[in-house]
């Protein structure tokens, strides 16, 4: 039977480095994705995810399983992401309209699209990518805390209690935050929803 996160962390505390490798393997992808969606930069997201794991490792001696491991992990990640977003806000630039169109940007293959490529689904692929950009842009436009709340709620399968602890707010404040965020997304994505309803 697989050891729980808490058991693994207690083993790390006892000096078992292999348990830390298991935690790294378990949470590297969700953590990098959460941070990538927060900061919109893969390299920065990976740097921040590294920092999260290092902080967890450094805190191993003082670890007490008073809360769920994921709450602790994503709390560190959220704080780092919010600080990073605030620090780099002035550097963020709108994507230039004449920037080369790319494909598979989420898979990490950001090569410019070769239109001459013999791809029968090229138009479909372009439409799909444009729709994804629209969704990403709608998420990006949310205030940082609302964005973090939506990402934790939608992609990390955490309950309201956990998310409210991560964001250091009450559960009712979180519900209100999430409602405002989804309401903004509903308005922003209304054209896409309407388009889907027609097709």
């Amino acid at each position, binding site marked *: 039977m697989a050891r729980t996160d808490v058991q693994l962390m207690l083993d790390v505390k006892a000096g078992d480095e292999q348990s830390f490798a298991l935690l790294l393997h378990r949470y590297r992808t969700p953590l990098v994705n959460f941070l990538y969606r927060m900061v919109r930069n893969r390299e920065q997201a*990976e740097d921040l995810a590294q920092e999260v794991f290092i902080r967890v490792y450094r805190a191993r001696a003082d670890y007490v399983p008073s809360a769920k491991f994921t709450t602790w992990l994503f709390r560190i990640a959220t704080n780092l992401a919010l600080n990073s977003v605030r620090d780099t806000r002035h550097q963020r630039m709108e994507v230039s309209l004449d920037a080369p169109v790319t494909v598979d940007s989420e898979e*990490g293959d950001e090569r410019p699209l070769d239109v001459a490529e013999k791809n029968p689904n090229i138009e479909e692929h372009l439409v799909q990518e444009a729709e994804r950009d629209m969704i990403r842009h709608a*998420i990006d436009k949310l205030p940082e805390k609302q964005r973090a709340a939506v990402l934790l709620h939608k992609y990390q399968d955490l309950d309201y209690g956990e998310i409210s602890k991560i964001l250091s707010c009450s559960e009712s404040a979180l519900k209100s935050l999430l409602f405002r965020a989804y309401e903004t997304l509903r308005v922003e994505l209304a054209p896409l929803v309407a388009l889907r309803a027609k097709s």
Partner: protein
Amino acid sequence: MSCTRMESRLLGYIDGRLKEKEQREMEKHLAACPACTVRVNEFRSVGSLLDELPQIEPSAAFDVRVRARIAAEPVKQEWWSWLGAAPRVLVAASMLLLATVWVGHRPADSTRVASSDGDESQIMQDQDLPVLENYDVLANFEPLTELPQPVSADDSSEQEM
């Protein structure tokens, strides 16, 4: 239930996290309110759109970099951990400690223990210690042997008679 109150429960309803009573109230309201029904459907559509964003995989270098940073972390040691790491030092330190305790507690002079004269004689002995230390010198000091012998108490009484 009002539309405003419905708002606070809307996400819980979509997530299936409402209590049974709240769920029934919500369904009753939605059956009578087309505007809220549209909103619930739109929220669900937004949720489906968010599901369409693909996940990214961390780069191949990610794990390597994390492991390298972990390896570069200074080893945190408790104050006593060096003892565990060096058993010889532990043994030597224990022996030194035992020796110190033994020396500190052993009787300084065996004659003190053996003495049965009590505390008073012990104090006198301590006071005469410099004389006792020079006992051999005094005992073998020839000029002292030529001195007249002290008169004992018995002798003096005989002279009075």
